């Protein structure tokens, strides 16, 4: 099949300081090709200056989140046939500063992520001196949010985040949820305090964009609601 690929371009090194789109008509595209394959093809055979992030190319590293035909996807996970269109428009994810073509500055995203202490905090010595046991149900409680790969597809699809860069965003709340509801962790209170602040969970307006955008199919809006409930009730079990 023939596909027209439109890609957002911005590159101060080559003097393209005014954001614009470049377009290529690609023939012999297989419907099962991924958008990343098309980008790689263009970069390899048409324009070597085209810049985008990619690493594992198998939906695990979370490097290549992009806005494709108006929706956030991982370029390595979305197939051409799934887009139901012969014109594919690729733009950088929204709400973060564009550095070059499809590459955005991820630092504000990671700064927000770090703010909720996304690591296990427990200074007590385990009962047997070796490990902290957990029942299946206790593990299941936060299983969904362990799947996050920090690709930022959710946060950059969130209208509250677009409007207010101070909002921590869905990905940060998901990663806080992962530890808040972990029976082995002891810093849930601290995290809930942080998320109760002005830029925290109360900025979420349940638009559900995050849930739709997540390439890992995490029930993000539900996770945010559970954190809201934990703040209201103080219960994290």
């Amino acid at each position: 099949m023939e596909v027209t690929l439109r890609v957002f371009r911005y590159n101060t090194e080559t003097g393209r300081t005014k954001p614009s789109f470049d377009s290529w008509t690609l023939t012999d595209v297989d419907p099962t090709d991924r958008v990343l394959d098309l980008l790689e093809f263009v970069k390899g055979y048409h324009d070597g200056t085209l810049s985008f992030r990619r690493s594992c190319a198998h939906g695990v590293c979370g490097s290549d989140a992009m806005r494709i035909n108006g929706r956030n996807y991982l370029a390595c996970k979305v197939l051409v046939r799934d887009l139901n269109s012969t014109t594919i428009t690729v733009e950088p994810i929204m709400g973060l500063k564009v550095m070059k073509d499809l590459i955005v500055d991820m630092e504000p995203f990671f700064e927000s992520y770090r703010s909720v202490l996304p690591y296990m905090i427990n200074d007590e010595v385990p009962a047997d001196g070796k490990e902290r046991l957990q029942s299946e149900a206790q593990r299941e409680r936060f299983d969904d949010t362990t799947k996050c790969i920090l690709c930022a597809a959710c946060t950059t699809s969130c209208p509250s985040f677009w409007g207010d860069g101070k909002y921590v965003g869905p990905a940060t709340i998901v990663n806080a949820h992962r530890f808040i509801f972990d029976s082995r962790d002891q810093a849930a209170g601290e995290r809930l305090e942080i998320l109760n602040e002005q830029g925290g969970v109360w900025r979420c307006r349940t638009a559900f964009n995050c849930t739709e955008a997540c390439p890992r199919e995490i029930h993000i809006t539900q996770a945010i609601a559970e954190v809201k409930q934990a703040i209201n009730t103080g219960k994290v079990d």
Partner: protein
Amino acid sequence: MTTTTANVKPKPNYEATAWKWMRYSGVLLIPLVWIHVAIQDVIVGVHNIDINYVAMRWANVGWQVYDILLLAFAFAHGMNGLRQVSFDFFTSEKARKNLSWVIFIAWIIISFIGAVAIIGGARLNLLNS
């Protein structure tokens, strides 16, 4: 086996209270608005509503309370929504705080004026004179 069942509830703040208010007022608005719509638009009908009907309605303490609640909750719900949306345009902490107060005071004043009007009722004798 360790468990975190201890209560870790943060102190409620303005944001948390506003969020809860949005939910509670939303739930209360469902019966208030639907009953209002059913009576005014379906049972009585908009074309049959005149000053006599309003006077009759506001002569009843129950309807006075009902209409004041409807006004206060609907207006608060809307004003809190406006506050949330305006935060997209005002990013400084100080501006947001001031804006929240302005909206809150506007809500109090308008609700108060509305309540005075409802309690005052429609004075048919004044209209007829």
